[in-house]
């Protein structure tokens, strides 16, 4: 399965947007914020097969929303996939 990719942009007023074909996430400029993709490449030591996972991370004032496919996680933790 191809990991979901978001186009990330920022407005002049600081609002951030992440847009995929199926989903849009916006962070309003209410404080410290950022958006990025968190990627994980998982490699099987026996077969050499690799799997690519990706989450969109939207952060506002230390609270993060992780969007992993259709699963959304709201947390202050620095999660790895």
């Amino acid at each position, binding site marked *: 399965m191809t990991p979901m990719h978001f186009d*990330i942009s920022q407005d002049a007023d600081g609002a951030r947007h992440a847009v995929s074909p199926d989903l849009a996430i916006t962070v309003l400029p209410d404080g410290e914020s950022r*958006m*990025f*993709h*968190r*990627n*994980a*490449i*998982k*490699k*099987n*030591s*026996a*077969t*050499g097969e690799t799997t690519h996972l990706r989450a969109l*991370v939207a952060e506002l004032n230390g609270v993060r929303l992780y969007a992993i496919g259709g699963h959304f996680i709201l947390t202050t933790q620095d*999660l*790895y*996939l």
Partner: protein
Amino acid sequence: MKNADNATVDNNNPMVIPPSGSDFSFEKWLRLNVTVAPSVQLSNLKFYTDGTSGQGTGVKLWAKAVASYATPAEATGTSGYTDAFTYNSGAALSLGAGPFTSTGEKGDHAVLMQEVLSTATQGVTPSETITFSYDEI
């Protein structure tokens, strides 16, 4: 992991259970190779395992981060290494904060090697999954 200087996945050149002491594998040097340039940058390169070794008694996997490449060699000890399974998603090995732009090899190398002790059991060990993580904007 094997007793040969190649990356071929096969059962040739297997690790040997020593009557005493340890048998060390050749090192494996792994590094993130960016083939498509990011829109802006990559950062926060990490390496980790699931935190639990499934290799059985007397078989250990060791890891370290190294900036400059050196020709892989057969390890002779564990100095400078850390048990790879202490690196998990909550406590990963950093391979560079970045930011990194453009294509090509980025960050530190993750150097892995295996140790087989006299207490190990004969046979093929179960596979493990290792993870490389990075942030991208």
